[in-house]
Every structure is written in C-alpha cells, then in structure tokens.
C-alpha cells in the first residue's frame, strides 16, 4: 500500500465540488477498489521498462560486437539459431527486440478488458455502482473519475514505454534483420501506441456500461478491441494498399585510419577483412519522413474514436441511472 500513498494528491483537482464524499475520497476509494489492477499495471510497466533497458544495454552487447566485427553479416549470424525457451522466445536479439511490443499490445487488450469487466460491468452487475450513486457522487462524476484515473496511469505508463522503445530503436535498430518486421515496428510505435490503449479503455467502458454483465462484456470488449487492432495494423483508410512505406538502411566500414570505406563484401572471412584494412563496421536505418504524418493521423483517428466512445458511455450512463 505504500506505493500508492501519494495518491490523494488530486485534492485540488475539483475543490469547488460539494458533497459528503469528497473528490479525494472518491479517488481514494477507486484506487483501493482496483488495487489489484493497479499493481498489475505498475508491475507490467516496471517489467517492460526493465526489459527495454536491458535490451538497450547488456542485452545488445553480443550482437553489437558481431556488427562491429563483421557488419550486416554479423547481424545475420547472430539471428540464426533456434533455441526455444518454452516455445516463447529464441533468445535472439532480433526476436527479443520485438517482445516488448507484444507485451504492449497484450497490455492494451488488458486495459480494454479491465475497463469492460472490473471497472464497469462487474460494479453494475453486483449493484455496487448503484449503491455508490445513492451516496453523494453523481453517476456522471463517478464515471468521469473511473475513466480519468486509469487514463492517467495508462498514459503515463505507455508514454514511458514508448519513449524507451524509440530510444532503443535509435540506439540498436541497426541490429535488426531488414524486412517487414523493423518496418512494421518503426511505423507502429509512437503516440498512436498510447492512443490505442486509451481507445481500449473508452471502448471497454462503453461495452461494460451497455452490457452490464461481466463475462459477456469481457467477450464483447475483447472482440471489439480485436477489430480496432486488426484495422490499426492493416487497413486504416489513409494507409492505402500497402501497410508501410519502405525504410532504408545504410552499412559502411571504417579502416584503421578512421576513414569510411564501402563494405568489401568479405562476409565472415577474417583474412579478407584484414586485406581490406577494415577496423570495424557500422550500420543505421535512415529516418522516414512518412513517420510523423502517419503517426499523428493514426493518433488522431484513435483519439477521435476514444472521444466518441466516452461520449456514448456518458449517454448510456444517463439513460441507465435514470432508471435506478
């Protein structure tokens, strides 16, 4: 509990509101009520952040050494082996690099399911919500707090992870095998990643308030968010026929005098490398001017969807609470 002790801080958030249950009380109640979810979320953010930092530092060193010594050939050698750990990961840098992305996608689904089940539907099903509305906070304020608190945590956590992930790309994207994977990664991680999680929160809450039964709400929200995700990765209207534009990479070698020379194409032949006086190699992905337009457009669409879902959730709530 010590970790959430600073939580009552938002007291000045709405000091003009009157009522027996003060805003800080409502915030505090919600944090306590959903503490399991809060701990799971903090645990996820901490674990993924550590994972990203590891990939930034010690995790990359072996592959980085091979890149320095052999160039892109070294990257390819590092990426060819197949020791599977429980069928989940090969332990190769080229595979591990994308695993935080999988965790982030799963967490977005988790947010949508949490919003549909424990946050809204379970409360309505068990009658806890109706009980709270009988006390002082109005249903609208109850829902506003219920949405604002998770939104705060989701935005903060996801922004941190996205930032770390982009830093990791800048530092070690050059250790990835070229192809569709780095391209898909490059264009998908950014502000839109945060917006996607927020849209899951809004969509889940709308489903929970509409269905008002925990398990059907979970199933529907999962399906609904699956559709959002499927459209996100493949066919937003503005992406046209192709998923992502090409991103280009550049490889070069440096000789013992420190001068840049073209890659001699020696593969892993050390004698050949010595003959061409190669001191070390370097490689980088060039930034694409398509990144920001695409990210911002996608973020805009997702936030628009979020706003619509939130508005609809408040409408549904007003209808429902009138009948209580």
């Amino acid at each position, binding site marked *: 509990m010590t970790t959430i002790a600073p939580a009552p801080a938002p007291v000045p958030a709405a000091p003009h509101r009157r009522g027996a249950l003060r805003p800080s009380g409502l915030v505090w109640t919600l944090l306590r009520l959903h503490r399991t979810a809060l701990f799971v979320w903090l645990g996820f953010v901490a674990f993924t952040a550590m994972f990203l930092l590891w990939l930034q530092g010690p995790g990359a060193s072996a592959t980085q050494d091979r890149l320095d010594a052999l160039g892109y050939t070294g990257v390819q050698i590092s990426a060819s082996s*197949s020791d*599977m750990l*429980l*069928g*989940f990961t090969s332990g190769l840098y080229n595979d591990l690099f994308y695993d935080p992305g999988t965790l982030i996608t799963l967490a977005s689904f988790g947010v949508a399911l949490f919003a549909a*089940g*424990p946050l809204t539907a*379970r409360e309505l099903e068990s009658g806890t919500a109706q009980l709270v509305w009988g006390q002082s906070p109005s249903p609208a304020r109850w829902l506003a707090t219920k949405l604002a608190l998770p939104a705060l945590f989701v935005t903060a956590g996801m922004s941190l992870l996205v930032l770390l992930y982009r830093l990791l790309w800048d530092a070690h994207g050059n250790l990835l095998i070229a192809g569709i994977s780095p391209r898909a990664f490059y264009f998908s991680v950014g502000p839109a990643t945060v917006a996607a999680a927020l849209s899951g929160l809004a969509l889940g809450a709308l489903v929970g308030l509409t269905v008002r039964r*925990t*398990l059907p709400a*979970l199933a529907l929200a999962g399906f609904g968010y699956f559709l959002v995700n499927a459209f996100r990765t493949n066919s937003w209207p503005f992406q046209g026929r192709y998923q992502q534009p090409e991103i280009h990479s550049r490889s070069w070698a440096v000789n013992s005098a420190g001068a840049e020379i073209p890659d001699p194409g020696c593969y892993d032949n050390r004698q050949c490398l010595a003959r061409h006086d190669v001191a070390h190699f370097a490689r980088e992905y060039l930034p694409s001017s398509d990144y920001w337009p695409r990210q911002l457009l996608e973020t805009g669409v997702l936030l628009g969807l979020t706003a619509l879902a939130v508005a609809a959730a408040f409408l549904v709530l007003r209808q429902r609470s009138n009948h209580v």
Partner: protein
Amino acid sequence: MSALALKGLKGLPGSVLRVHRAALLVWTVFILAAVGYLVWLTDITAHSVHARISACDDVEGFCRATLAAGDYSGPMGWIGTAVYYSFWAVAAWAGAALIGRELESGTAHLAWTQNVSPARWLAAKLALPALALALGGTVFVVVFRWAWSAHRDLMGDDWTFNDVFADRGPALVAWSLCALAVGTLTALLLRRALPALGISVAVMTVLNRYLESHRHELWQAATRTSTTGSAASNGAWPTDTGTYHPASHFWPMNLVETGILLTITALATTAAFAVLRRRTV
C-alpha cells in the same frame, strides 16, 4: 437407486444446461457456422475459383495463387485457426463462468445444500460441457479432414502447420477438454471468476506454445537417405538435425499429443475433485 436420487440425477443436468444455455448456444452456432462455411467453400467457392483459374490465361501459378488466396485458401485458413484456438475461450469460460462465478457468488454452495453433493455437482458441471466439446469437435474434425483434402491444389499450407496438425485429428478435442479441466481446477483453487479466467488462459497459452514447439519430437524422426530422398521431400516435415517426418507420421504424432493432453486433463480433473473435497469437508 431410490426414486429421489433418480429425480436428482435428472434435475441436475437439466439445471446445468439451463444455467449455461447461452454458452451451449454460442458453441453450437460456432461449430455449425465453421462446418457450414467449410462445406460452402469446398463445394461452391472452390469450383468457381477453378473455373476462373482455367479461364485466366496468365502465367501458370500466378492466377492460381491470386485467385485462390482471397476467396478460398484465406477463409479455409481462418476457419482452421479459429476452431483450433477456441480452446482459449473454453479455458476462460470454464474458469470464469462455469465454476468461478458460481463459487464467488455462492450459487454453488446453495446447490450443495439442495440434495446435490459437491462431487456430483462438479461431475455434472464437467460431463455436460465435455460431451458438447467432444461432439462439436468431432463433427468439425470429420468435416475439416474432408474439406482440407478436397482441393489441395488451391492451398499453400501442409499438414505440419500448427492449426492444421491439430484440426485433422483427435488432438483438437483433447485441447478443448484439457482447457475445460484446467479452467475448472484454476477456478476451484482461486474461487474468483476473473482471476481464474486470467490464470487458466495463461496456463493454456504456456502449455500450447510449449507443445507446439516440441511437436517434431513427439515421434521418432526418419533419417534421410539417397533412395528415399525424393519421396521423403514430398510433404515431409524436416527437423533441425537433418532428419524428417514423412506425412505418414501424422497419426502417431497426433495420437501422442492427444495422449499427453488427455493425461493432463485426467490429472487436472482428479486434482479438481480433491480440491473440492478439501474445500467442502
């Protein structure tokens, strides 16, 4: 057996069916839709795709690939994948709706005071879904085997694909029965719906990924020799060590996987009854 007990036996399955009628309906519609779509694709779509391929005088192979992908092989693949991974939904449902919710809300305890012993309650809760899963799964496997082999020329997959491997044999039913048992055991241990849902899905995910990555070890692989080389390369599953599984290994491999899953199912079910006895004594 007394008349009262007989009446109880009749009433218990009836009440289990009534409580979970929505799930039964969803499962029935899901299987019927999958089977119906398979029949439609095989009997109707495939013929129109064939007709368009023969009318298309492009380079051989290109027409076939492009025309078949969207209308035929794509949907075929999706059906196989969806039915295979439906065991996740089974695990979630068994953990949350079948057992977890009843223990959380106290409905189960109410039933146990009504002349229904906890063991019989659990037996009915497991037997009826198991029957529905086995029936639906068997129907799907039979139809899928027929549909999958009907138009091989239009498909790009083979028997070693994760979903195809399970969908063509009893392993498909074993996966759903295993999910039912694991979900039940998790719910009895946790006695809360949503945590049980999460844990049972996680357990099934780990088990699934583990077994899928070790499938090629389920049966002794054959060694490639010069005389069998060309025959073996036809539909064989090569392994890392240079050996391979000919297509004839499908049945033993599928049956071994079924055996492993049914053993886990039996263990989880036994453990579930043991946990229930401890909880209710």
